[in-house]
């Protein structure tokens, strides 16, 4: 390391690895991991989100989990929450759709309409 710029580069990379502890998160992806969600494949969906967010180095996106939402027939259910925007709730998600949500909604800002259950 020779300059202040080098230090800043290291800092940005390291911040990415610590983002879970940071409260300045732009988008939160919350996967419903209740019993029925897990039975319907929520674990795979969760894994896909984590991998996609990692490969695309989305520093300000956090993937988290929640319990049963009550919509068992539409599991796995995923919420995408962005500060100052409505809460988008998707249903019947699998790995393929998860990838689409990351690309279309999280990166480009266009919710994937055909799998939306509700917008609050």
């Amino acid at each position, binding site marked *: 390391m020779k300059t202040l710029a080098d230090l800043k580069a290291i800092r940005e990379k390291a911040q990415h690895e610590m983002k879970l*502890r940071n409260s300045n998160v732009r988008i939160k992806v*919350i996967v419903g991991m209740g019993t029925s969600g897990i039975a319907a494949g929520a674990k795979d969906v969760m894994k896909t989100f*984590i991998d996609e967010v990692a490969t695309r180095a989305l520093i300000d996106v956090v993937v988290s989990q929640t319990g049963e939402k009550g919509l068992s027939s539409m599991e796995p259910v995923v919420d995408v929450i962005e500060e100052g925007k409505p809460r988008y709730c998707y249903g019947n998600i699998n790995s393929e759709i998860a990838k689409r949500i990351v690309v279309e909604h999280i990166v480009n800002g266009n919710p994937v309409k055909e799998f939306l259950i509700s917008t609050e």
Partner: protein
Amino acid sequence: MPTKRIDLLICCGSGCVSAGALRIKDRFIEELKKNEIYDEVNIIETGCMGPCDFGPVLMVYPEGIFYIKVTPEDAEEIVNEHFIKGRPVKRLMQQEKDKTHATKNEIPFYQKQVKVALENCGYLNPEKIEEYIALGGYEALANVLNNKPEDAIEIIKRSGLRGRGGAGFPSGMKWEFVNKAKGSPKYVVCNADEGDPGAFMDRSLLEGDPHRVLEGMMIAAYSVGASEGYFYIRAEYPLAITRIKLAIEQAKEYGLMGNNILGTDFSFDAFVRTGAGAFVCGEETALISSIMGQRGQPIQKPPYPANEGLWKKPTLVNNVETLGNIAPIFNKGPEWFSNMGTETSKGTKVFALTGDVKNTGLVEVPMGITVKDLIYEVGGGIVGDKKFKAVQLGGPSGGCLTNDHLDVKIDYESLKEKGAMMGSGGVIVMNDSNCMVNIAKFFLEFSVDESCGKCAPCRIGLKQMYEILDKITKGKGKPSDIDELVTLGNSIKQLSLCGLGQTAPNPVLSTIKYFREEYEEHINNQACPTKVCLDLMHYVINKDICIGCSLCARRCPTSCISGSRQDKFTIAQVDCVKCGNCMEVCPVKAITKESGMHPDMVKHLKKLEQELLEYQ
């Protein structure tokens, strides 16, 4: 490396580790692997989070859930419920009356605290320099290196930072002395020889955020023109030693230490020296002797270490916490720092809160907080139904404050005025079952043990004081003893060579000042009002309550309890060793402690005296 979705922070401060934090960690790894989510969770061992009384504690991000008193068996439930199903385990959160505190910020213990030195302690992984850099680490150093050393000294002067080791000497002035001193090379020494009973501030900072201290040391070194630094850490702190060594290694790997740091002319290298645990080595000249491989004894000042220190060269000696405050002062500005605290004492102070207080642990509060707020708001008040009696500030060098001083502000001057001192930050809270004579004796015994023996007032005087106190607690005190103690104490304070002797009489002098009647009770009535001094109390069995079960008699190690179901039981006072077994086992609580000597014992002692006289 795949992104994780959960950061599991396990407090690995010394308190939590002894309470089993590492076993909990192993159990979590096991459970996570079983559920195939091991690669989704980051397990991070952090430094002390503070509330040691709640230990072992865990934090789970991104939610920031704070779990307390976790056992290895709880790992399964946390993984299944929280990590997989997203339902945080309420049972393990801090509960107060009908409220549950889910996150750290909701817990009252943290609400009056302001973290400066401990900002990252319990939040980052102390063994990863990357995390420290992510939180803005080493940026202060980079900025300082782009300016003149004098500018850095000016900033520290403006911040009003004073030495956190005890005496409270203005840090900026100290830096300036070393900067202006003639001689080369110059050295920086970090004093981590924390030895007061019940103090663990420096230890926790070194264990929890070693890079913060290292960065502070490097800024100090650049400011005074030093190119070598020494950490003097006692051998009792193996984890602190490991972590600071690792920090030095990592800083070197990243090119933050070594030659021409960040492309400037500044070169720096740091070394660790371990001390053998002598209290006197916290005194700067003794510490310097010890680093040089000599016997740890203080020498007369002046010359001060700023002019003639390590190997007779100009040396800056700063305490761990002082160095921990340096980086934030540069990052946030000296005005931000000087806005906290009182007129003469700026910033915050780390305290190790121990004793009969609910929330024991590591706390950082703004200077000027009242004793009451520290004990009742941060500390949560006194444990059980006991009453507050006194608080010892500054360990064996400090003094006590009482109920009358609850509104005293905690800063260097106010405490000194009341006969206590800031010290390095040990706070021992005592309830009304503590005997103050005994407490004074305890601290004095420590000082007698730790006196290096170089100067007579400390070596001989303290021992004399200890013997008088010992006699008082055994019922052999004379009315003139109190004045004798005061005279001796004051002379020792004036005549001793170093800080150890100059402050060691403080616990005795301050307890005499505030609890003189307790001393008088011991001397005049041969009674310990709090029933702590074994010679001046006794156990009695109340025959009206006793059911004659004989449990006490069976548990008595000296077989001095006798009786029957009809006659009930009595204690033969002369043979009683006051172990307290009988009181513990009594199912109906018929046995109580009474203050003073039992008449039988008084008679027995008189008889012995008489026999001795006849024999002579």
